[in-house]
């Protein structure tokens, strides 16, 4: 019976806490709440995003805040685990009484928040979610990632478009990717694109995330002798794949496409010369065609604080977008002069937004009206130099034409010298 007494007391305590929940006050600062991956698998991106968000909040507050009220960030570590997300968002909304919520980083951590957001009819901006809204069809969800209206295919469209323009046109393609959420989605899109361009798929395999050595895979690809190779890999695999390809001497006419991680300065520095000639997706690079207002200032601030925060030293990949998704939200609040979720959502849906990463307009499904997935080629790379990646001319934009900043060195082998 004594044991049971302990149990009853514990549950009783829990109930009491529930009854005496702190009641937040409505006035005071505007609270923006979110969960972010500060530990776990995607913490590298999550922490970088957090720094960008903090910079945004500081800048806004310096200018007097939103609607004359200061902005306060309320955030919790979702540990890169989907299971923590529902708890975090209900805590933010019910206990902390935040006024606005935005998403954490990545599909896995956006999706579990959506049912809560939808139930309460809130406006929600997602950071780097791949086709999350396909399942929910929620009108007030917006995705900050320039993948375009049909993200899966738009992701690799540029890569295949570039291939299609070459003469003679490549005829065969090898598809390889990580057997995980991103890899599979990107491969599915690449399959469609390959079909659209009349390419014959000679290799199409996924590898498990725990793969140690990629030599056997690269050998298998080499044996099929493809004209182009599309890779949809996560950061460690991108490095492994590239190293194995380099060692084995795999030299198709075009190599890369969907390799995550080649956008990170740390990995770029580590791989150095091996990157030469690789054509890969990117969202923003320091090329003259992409000098949007404010981005240089932002990156300067970010880079000064990157070391202390333990995040990517250059911050070209996630941080500008993390800044932008709050920029969009902030602009909507200012424009509607309210915190009314309906009005904010309506505004975001119907207007164009001028941000750090260029002008953004959303399609009815919440994705960008037009894809801006860049295809960049690594050119003139040296070993062991971080600095070069902060300068133009090393990640040259090949596609889309609107942002083009250089010409493709083709085939891949020629770039490799």
């Amino acid at each position, binding site marked *: *019976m*004594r*044991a*049971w007494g*302990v*149990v*009853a007391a*514990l*549950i009783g305590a*829990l*109930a009491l*806490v*529930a*009854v005496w*929940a702190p009641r937040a006050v409505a006035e005071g600062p505007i609270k923006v709440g979110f969960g972010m991956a*500060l*530990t776990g*698998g995607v913490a590298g991106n999550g922490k970088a995003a957090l720094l960008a968000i903090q910079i945004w909040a500081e800048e806004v507050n310096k200018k007097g805040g939103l609607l004359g009220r200061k902005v306060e960030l309320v955030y*919790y*570590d979702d*540990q890169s*685990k*989907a*299971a*923590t*997300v*529902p*708890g*975090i968002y*209900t*805590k933010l*909304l*019910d*206990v902390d009484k935040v006024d606005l919520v935005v998403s954490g980083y990545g*599909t*896995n951590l956006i*999706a*579990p928040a*959506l*049912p*809560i957001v939808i*139930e309460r009819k809130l406006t929600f901006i997602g950071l780097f979610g791949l086709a999350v809204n396909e*399942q*929910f069809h929620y009108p007030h969800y917006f995705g900050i990632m320039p993948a375009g209206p049909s993200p899966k295919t738009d992701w690799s469209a540029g890569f295949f478009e570039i291939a299609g323009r070459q003469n003679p046109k490549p005829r065969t393609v090898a598809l390889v990717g990580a*057997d*995980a*959420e991103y*890899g*599979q*989605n990107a491969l599915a899109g690449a399959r469609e694109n390959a079909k659209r361009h009349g390419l014959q798929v000679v290799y199409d395999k*996924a590898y*498990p*995330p725990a793969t140690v050595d990629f030599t056997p895979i690269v050998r298998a690809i080499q044996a099929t002798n493809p004209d182009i190779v599309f890779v949809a890999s996560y950061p460690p695999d991108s490095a492994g794949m590239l190293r194995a390809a380099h060692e084995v001497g795999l030299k198709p006419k075009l190599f890369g496409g969907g390799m995550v991680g080649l956008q990170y300065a740390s990995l770029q520095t580590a791989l150095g010369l091996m990157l030469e000639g690789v054509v890969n997706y990117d969202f923003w690079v320091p090329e003259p065609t992409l000098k949007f207002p404010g981005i240089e200032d932002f990156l300067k601030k970010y880079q000064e604080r990157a070391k202390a925060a333990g995040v990517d030293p250059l911050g070209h990949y996630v941080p500008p977008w993390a800044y932008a998704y709050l920029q969009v939200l902030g602009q909507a609040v200012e424009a509607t002069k309210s915190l009314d979720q309906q009005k904010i959502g309506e505004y975001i849906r119907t207007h164009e937004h001028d941000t750090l990463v260029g002008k953004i307009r959303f399609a009815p499904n919440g994705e960008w009206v037009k894809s801006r997935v860049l295809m960049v080629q690594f050119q003139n790379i040296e070993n062991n130099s971080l600095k070069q990646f902060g300068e133009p001319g090393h990640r040259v934009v090949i596609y889309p034409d609107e942002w083009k900043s250089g010409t493709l060195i083709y085939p891949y082998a020629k770039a490799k010298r």
Partner: protein
Amino acid sequence: MRGRALLAVAVALVVLAVALTRLSANQYYYFAAYVIFQYVVLATAWNILGGYTGYVNFGSAGFFALGAYTAAILIKAFPVPFPVLLLAAGTVGGLLGLSLGYLTLRLRGVFFSIATLALAVVLQTLIVNWEYAGGSRGIYTMRPATVLFFDNYVEFLFVVMLILALGALATARWIEHSRLGRGLAAIRDNEEAAECMGVPTLRLKLVAATVSGALMGIAGAPFPYYVTYMEPASTFNLDYAVNSLAMPMIGGATTWVGPLLGAVLLGTAQQIATVTISSALNLLIVGVVLVAFVILAPDGIIGLVRRRRGGRHA
């Protein structure tokens, strides 16, 4: 007599919980409590095979995920009522448990544990390569907009998990005080001696493994509705295995109160840590506490309490 008193308390708790959903609209506590109750079920289930019988299962995550995926696939395939989900997840988990039980035929101690680890990986590989279950891309499960009696699905899940937790505890308590429980304890202490003293060890181990597996599967059944999006890597997360083993070890693995205490304490600490301090630090604390407990308090909190009281048996 004592059993009836506990039953009364359990019923009172459920009534209280339902009443609470009427009073407070604060969803956070339901979500938080849901997670803790889920760990009560998992820890209790683990303990039936691990604590009572002495077979350490490192594959709890596999059982949990299998239950969750069973539910998600059923929801995707047919419009099934909720109790069917629980039943199906329990059945699948129980069958997996049964096969695990047969493993004990050949494997003892560490070898068994390593096999459970491998079993979880094989299961994950199967799900990853199963297109209908979403493969590695994951599977979405939409919550129904309405549910009978409750104004909100989360409140419903909260009450369901509370009932499951109480059910698991009742099962564990019943086993502990039955002939079955004494037989399992004999197996844990010395399997060879138990067999020679007339205990049908294989049958008892099969029962324990099946019950344990079924409960873990059931714990996973409401999970698709809770997260709405599952993919193998996070559903098969090692955390479930660690927690469902750490909680009984910290609470005390020989009685049903141990996993409950461990789950409530560790689960609450983790919930609080998630929304306060850095969670990496929080995980470190779990690791240190776990190591400290196995070294300093081998019988968990229950053991400490008993030792303080002078070795009297509760």
